[in-house]
């Protein structure tokens, strides 16, 4: 990859004859790889290669963890092929990495030699005008003067220095150059991409992401076993997470209550008490866009839902479950579902599947639906199961699912029991199996916890990238060359401005410099080619 906007500097054609030795062959390959054309092709490939990553479900992309499995179920023939090609993990696929790594190699191979060139250019003095600098050459301004050559040269030099040109003066000539910083910006831009890669790699290697659901009144401590889901990097030290604890005192949720956007969420706020590693407690709040930060580990409020509080009594009358149960929301009205397991109920284990409707309409029409996401008139619909919940054989199971394979559904008059309960209501199960009471509703919060030790490096890289890019696209590298000479009894000044970049020198710069150096007005404006403002 060469540098942006430098059409004058094109590499020579890289194809040499057939009589290349192995070294020549390597050199040829290197040249080809670092050529702009290769870089362009790689850029286009990179962009195109990213497309399937947005059209096909991806593993490890946060939105829906089950999307890939569902896609595979719907397309049983296609999915294995796509999977083998890495199309469900495009951004971790070797071929995707191959493209950007080749691109970065190409970029480095191009940029490093440019660093050397820039270094040399910076140390060498600006070029002087050729002896035959013509008043008729493009971009030239000339006038006659009675001042001495030295006066004119000094005035011009002073003007140019004030405009931050590097100026070199001889008795009757001025050479000035500016805009090297453009190249510097360009190098900074390209090298920042390498720095960015380092930041990303550090984050991937040593960082982690995790998720946890916390009910109101409960809490979370930052240790591995507290996470519901945890994705460490290959070098993450899972046993030495930043120690802190958090108690969720209250989760405040507010919804739009009026108008066309009724039901849209307006505010989520988690009031928490945090205990740091030093044991000091503090009360704070976690909101969307306002995370908790403890020593670089951040905790984000990413979602919420309801945890209906239920009490289950078994056939012997003992309370075998009493507390909130996390129900996962299914829709915008927060219709939620979950399961309640009472494996220690006697004489038989009990399991319940429940659907929570936070606000049912007052007409109580069937089927019941939730009409508002806030819990204004909640109804818990339960169905019940008895038998073996499958928890005694030691295999871990989801707290959100009931394995009904060894269970019998509780029936009333030959129909499955399905009872809608309002708060405070109890349903007695038939045959003395027990009962379930709907005590009330609390909330839970979803938290995302993340640590990325590379993010500061990435941020620095991003700033470097932006600054470098802006400089390289706006600064114009240009030269001003001036000559004072005697032509047949009078003294003539010729000043030429030459752009070394596509945009050319800023409009009016030459006019202003020469006017201040004694050129009589009005200016016979030269041909505008290369100036920004077409005329």
């Amino acid at each position, binding site marked *: 990859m060469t540098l942006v906007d430098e059409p004058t500097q094109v590499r020579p054609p890289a194809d040499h004859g057939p009589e*290349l030795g192995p070294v020549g062959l390597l050199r040829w390959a290197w040249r080809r790889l670092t050529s702009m054309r290769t870089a362009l092709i790689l850029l286009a490939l990179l962009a195109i290669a990213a497309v399937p990553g947005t059209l096909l479900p991806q593993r490890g992309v946060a939105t829906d963890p089950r999307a890939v499995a569902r896609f595979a179920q719907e397309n049983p023939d296609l999915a294995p092929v796509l999977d083998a090609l890495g199309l469900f993990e495009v951004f971790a696929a070797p071929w995707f990495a191959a493209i950007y790594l080749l691109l970065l190699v190409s970029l480095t191979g191009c940029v490093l030699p440019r660093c050397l060139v820039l270094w040399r250019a910076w140390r060498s003095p600006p070029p002087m005008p050729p002896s035959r600098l013509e008043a008729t050459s493009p971009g030239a301004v000339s006038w006659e003067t009675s001042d001495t050559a030295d006066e004119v040269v000094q005035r011009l030099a002073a003007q140019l220095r004030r405009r931050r040109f590097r100026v070199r003066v001889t008795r009757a000539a001025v050479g000035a150059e500016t805009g090297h910083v453009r190249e510097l910006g360009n190098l900074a831009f390209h090298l920042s991409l390498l720095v960015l890669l380092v930041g990303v790699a550090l984050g991937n*290697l040593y960082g982690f992401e995790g998720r946890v659901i916390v009910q109101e009144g409960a809490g979370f401590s930052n*240790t591995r*076993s507290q996470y519901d889901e945890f994705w460490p*990097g290959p070098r993450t030290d899972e046993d030495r997470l930043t120690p802190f604890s958090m108690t969720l005192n209250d989760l405040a949720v507010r919804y739009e209550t009026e108008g066309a956007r009724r039901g849209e969420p307006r505010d989520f706020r988690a009031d928490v008490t945090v205990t740091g590693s030093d044991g000091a407690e503090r009360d704070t709040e976690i909101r969307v866009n306002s995370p908790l930060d403890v020593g670089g580990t951040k905790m984000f409020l990413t979602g919420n839902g309801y945890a209906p509080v239920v009490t289950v009594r078994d056939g012997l009358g003992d309370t075998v479950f009493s507390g909130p149960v996390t129900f996962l929301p299914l829709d915008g009205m927060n219709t939620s579902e979950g399961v309640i397991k009472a494996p220690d109920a006697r004489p038989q284990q009990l399991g319940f599947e429940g659907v929570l409707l936070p606000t049912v309409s007052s007409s109580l029409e069937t089927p019941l639906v939730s009409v508002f996401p806030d819990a204004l008139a909640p109804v818990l619909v339960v169905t019940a199961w008895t038998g073996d919940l499958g928890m005694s054989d030691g295999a*871990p199971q989801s707290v959100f699912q009931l394995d009904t394979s060894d269970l019998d559904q509780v029936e009333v008059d030959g129909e499955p029991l399905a009872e809608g309960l309002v708060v405070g209501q109890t349903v007695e199960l038939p045959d003395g199996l027990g009962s379930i009471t709907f005590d009330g509703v609390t909330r839970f919060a979803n938290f995302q916890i993340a640590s990325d030790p590379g993010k500061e490096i990435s941020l620095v890289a991003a700033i470097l990238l932006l600054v470098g890019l802006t400089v390289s696209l706006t600064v114009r590298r240009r030269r001003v060359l001036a000559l004072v000479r005697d032509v047949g009894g009078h003294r003539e000044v010729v000043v030429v401005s030459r752009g070394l970049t596509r945009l050319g020198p800023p409009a009016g710069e030459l006019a202003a410099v020469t006017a201040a150096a004694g050129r009589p007005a009005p200016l016979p404006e030269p041909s505008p080619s290369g100036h920004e403002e077409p005329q």
Partner: protein
Amino acid sequence: MEGRRRGWVVLVVAVVIAVAVALGWSALRGDTSPGGADQAATTASADPVLVVGEADRGEPVALSGSTIQGSQMSVADLVGDVVVVNVWGSWCAPCREEAPVLAAASRDYAARGVSFVGVNVRDNRAAALAFEERYGITYPSIEDPDGRAVLALSGYVPARAVPVTVLLDREGRVAARVLGVVSDDILRGLTDDLLAESDGTPTSASTAVRE
């Protein structure tokens, strides 16, 4: 013409090398695809048993809180006994597998200077008590709804999973840890070693354990 053909060869070689590098890179990145949504994080570690030699043990464990039975307790009060700390929850299926082992051992060792302490994580009291009644567990369990007790414990020894069992020597220092379901053999072997330790009888804990 020949140069052109050779050019293609070089290009192909370059691409192959790049793919090889990329494969290495993605291997380095590791498998970051999400795991299951199970709350019960069991260990996949090859050797879940960790034994700390007498010379390498750290500070005495400070672990205290209110129990699900409603009283206060502190592990520090048990110094002089060998202490078995078990982290569990009634929702955790593997905990049910090991519960009979712990219940029986706690009865058998009660008179031999061994105390058992539970840490009940993310549970509700009714369910936890029903669990204890079913399995005949009589030792106290610290109630830990926000993980503070587990965090305190993991300050002394890595405790990545539920269940996890940690054994403290008579001075209250971490002497052994078992991630995941603890078997009767291992539990009794480790306990016997710790009891023997303070008798001054040297034994090899690790050989006793890893068979």
